[in-house]
């Protein structure tokens, strides 16, 4: 029996259409729009002005608090303006616009493909380098990576878990990275083991990627402390709490963090970025993005400069299909629907998914028939049907009591509901309100 997480879960059709498309470099865009808020926490502070000339890899906005991250220029050229621009959320937020001129990189950045194995930096220097390079969780959560390396006093990291699960249907960016940058990832893992002072690292990969499991296993077979763990295919296994449960059999306590049970989790995309930052001195200026969809001509995996318009990805993948009904930033389970196409790829963009019109519309909603399917799939052991009814009626006290804040918003409940109830919509609404109530109570 393959390992998986302890309760709930679903298995939607995988649709990994772009799985055999090797990572290719997208042509450098003519302009980029780099939002100042593309990580969890406080938006960064710009340190360039309109008219400034910048090189690729140059710091253009500084981390603005403990949970915040640096931002670097992803192209060389001129800063044309700094003003609000719509991002993938649909809201207008401050962004730096750069017009590309050539492709001039900062000195000291090693862009060669040579593998650098020897880790010269010490622990603190590694953490500092990760922070300087603006690396965030590239699985989509965008939590600043250096913060996780700073284990709080009294806690001890025991296991480093590498998230190669990629459980969202359609997405293949992490899968391709594991196949194509295997050795770089191994060095990246060793860097993190050094930074966290852990002896054991486990790479979790779902069993629908046998090639990635095989190649990673081969790469780590003579390395002490690093192991590959094949996992049963089960969404949302890429969720931090579910991955830890699947690999270690430990449950992160309600309201707690992975470090509370001795685990730290990094996505393979972040590990690769950390390798490049520490060994090649390269800040996070590009990432791998899957562009896919049933009607897309050439489902692809592109290496994309941060700030590139989504429109350019779509054009490179064969253009926008006539019957497109919805465009997602991310996978079909947790991705965000875009309201417009001229929004930039950001650090957290793992994929762009085009959904045909007939699949884009929501189902008609019926009364809950109490079939219990939402309960059986909820990976957090919640009662989505009940939270849905309470959310609809605005019973926020009850929602808090029924632990709405534990919801990880994986969407499994809405996915299975035969009555087509938008359970997660009500739960999100409740989480927002309950969050406000809790904050108000705590500040009293």
């Amino acid at each position: 029996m393959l390992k998986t997480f302890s309760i709930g879960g679903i298995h939607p059709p995988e649709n990994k259409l772009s799985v055999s498309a090797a990572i290719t470099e997208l042509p450098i865009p003519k302009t980029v729009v780099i939002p100042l808020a593309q990580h969890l926490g406080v938006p960064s502070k710009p340190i360039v002005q309109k008219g400034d000339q910048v090189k690729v890899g140059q710091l253009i906005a500084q981390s603005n608090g403990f949970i915040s991250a640096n931002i670097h220029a992803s192209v060389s050229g001129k800063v044309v303006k700094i003003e609000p621009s719509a991002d993938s959320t649909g809201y207008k937020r401050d962004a730096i616009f750069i017009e590309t001129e050539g492709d001039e990189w900062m000195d000291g950045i090693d862009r060669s493909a040579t593998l650098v194995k020897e880790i010269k930096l010490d622990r603190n220097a590694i953490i500092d380098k990760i922070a300087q390079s603006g690396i965030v969780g590239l699985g989509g959560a965008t939590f600043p990576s250096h913060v996780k390396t700073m284990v709080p006093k009294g806690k001890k990291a025991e296991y480093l878990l590498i998230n190669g699960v990629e459980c969202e249907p359609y997405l293949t960016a992490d899968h391709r990275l594991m196949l194509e940058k295997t050795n770089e990832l191994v060095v990246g893992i060793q860097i993190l083991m050094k930074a966290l002072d852990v002896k054991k690292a486990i790479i979790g990969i779902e069993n629908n990627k046998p090639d990635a499991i095989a190649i990673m296993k081969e790469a780590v077979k003579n390395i002490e402390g690093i192991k590959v763990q094949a996992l049963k295919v089960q969404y949302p296994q890429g969720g931090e709490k579910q991955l830890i449960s699947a690999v270690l059999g430990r449950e992160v306590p309600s309201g707690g963090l992975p470090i509370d049970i001795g685990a730290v989790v990094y996505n393979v995309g972040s590990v690769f970025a950390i390798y490049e930052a520490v060994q090649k001195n390269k800040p996070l200026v590009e990432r791998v993005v899957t562009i896919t969809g049933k009607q897309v001509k050439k489902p692809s995996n592109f290496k994309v400069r941060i700030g590139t318009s989504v429109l350019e990805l779509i054009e490179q993948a064969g253009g926008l299909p006539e019957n497109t009904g919805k465009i997602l930033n991310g996978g079909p389970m947790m991705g965000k629907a875009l309201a417009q196409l001229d929004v930039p790829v950001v650090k957290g963009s793992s994929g762009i998914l085009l959904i045909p019109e007939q699949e884009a519309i929501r189902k008609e909603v019926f009364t809950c028939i109490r079939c219990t399917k939402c309960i059986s799939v909820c990976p957090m052991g919640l009662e989505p049907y009940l939270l849905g009814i309470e959310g609809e009626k605005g019973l926020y006290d009850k929602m808090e009591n029924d632990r709405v804040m534990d919801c990880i918003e994986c969407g499994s409940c809405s996915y299975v509901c035969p009555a087509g109830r938008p359970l997660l919509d009500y739960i999100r609404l409740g989480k927002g309100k309950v969050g406000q109530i809790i904050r108000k109570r705590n500040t009293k």
Partner: protein
Amino acid sequence: MNKLFVSPSPHIHSGDSVSKNMYGVIIALIPAFMTSVWFFGIGSIVITLAAVLSCVLFEYLIQKYMFKTAPTISDGSAILTGLLLAFNIPTTVPIWMIITGSLVTIGIAKMSFGGLGNNPFNPALVGRVFMLISYPVQMTTWPVPMSDNRFTSIDGLTGATPLGVLKEGLGKGDKLETILSQMPDLGNMFLGNIGGSAGEISAIALLIGFVYLLWRKIITWHIPVSVIGSVFIFSGILHFANPELTAGPVFHILAGGVMLGAIYMATDYVTSPMTITGMLIYGICIGILTVLIRVFGAYPEGISFAILIMNAFTPLINLYVKPKRFGRVRS
């Protein structure tokens, strides 16, 4: 391209629907219907059609003219309710009684609470109990299986059900052995060659439907197994403690409506508990109540009452029995 749709995640759906579940149960009931027709003849077809058509019609009329909403009879729930009502009554009941029973089933037990999803009690069972109380003679006059004229006339021979014979015999002080010797053997009871309500007689047919429901993941095993298991264990304890008190456990699960009730009535989504533990508690209580009513009560059969009583406890069970939560117990 037209405008882009924007909605919160998730953006895909399993494709499951209310009607898929309802029609799934209807399909699972086909073997039971076929055995019913085989053993009871056209009477079975007549009452099934009468119940299904009147349930669907009443639901349509109430939604259209009283609620003034778009009728949802196509979701299959009214068809299913009608089918289950028919399965719970003798095939010799007059049609007008079935129509009044359907009116109570749909009108009072289902629509007066707001329709599908809102009814606290299983509608078909409410209808059945209403009919049992209102028409006690017709509702306890049972057709004899395999009567010669069953395909030519609805006026077949009538007789008693195994449970009825048992109750009456024990009441008169007859020995259990003597009573059992007048009845079909367990093999015939398993096949369905016994008197009883239209759809309850054949254990094998009902079990085939159960396997189908499990395969389609429409229901889980918890309620049926806990109901049947607890009838088996509890009647077994009573039988072996005092063999003259009641028949053995196999008799109890094959006679009467335990199979039909456990697999198709107690598992009604709307009126049964939401968690696995809750389902087990609910199922075990139904089993115990069924045996208590059968052995110590006034009626020979008790499954309908047992399910209705436990329907009343479902909200309480849901309130106190919660699913296993992720990350709850941690230092």
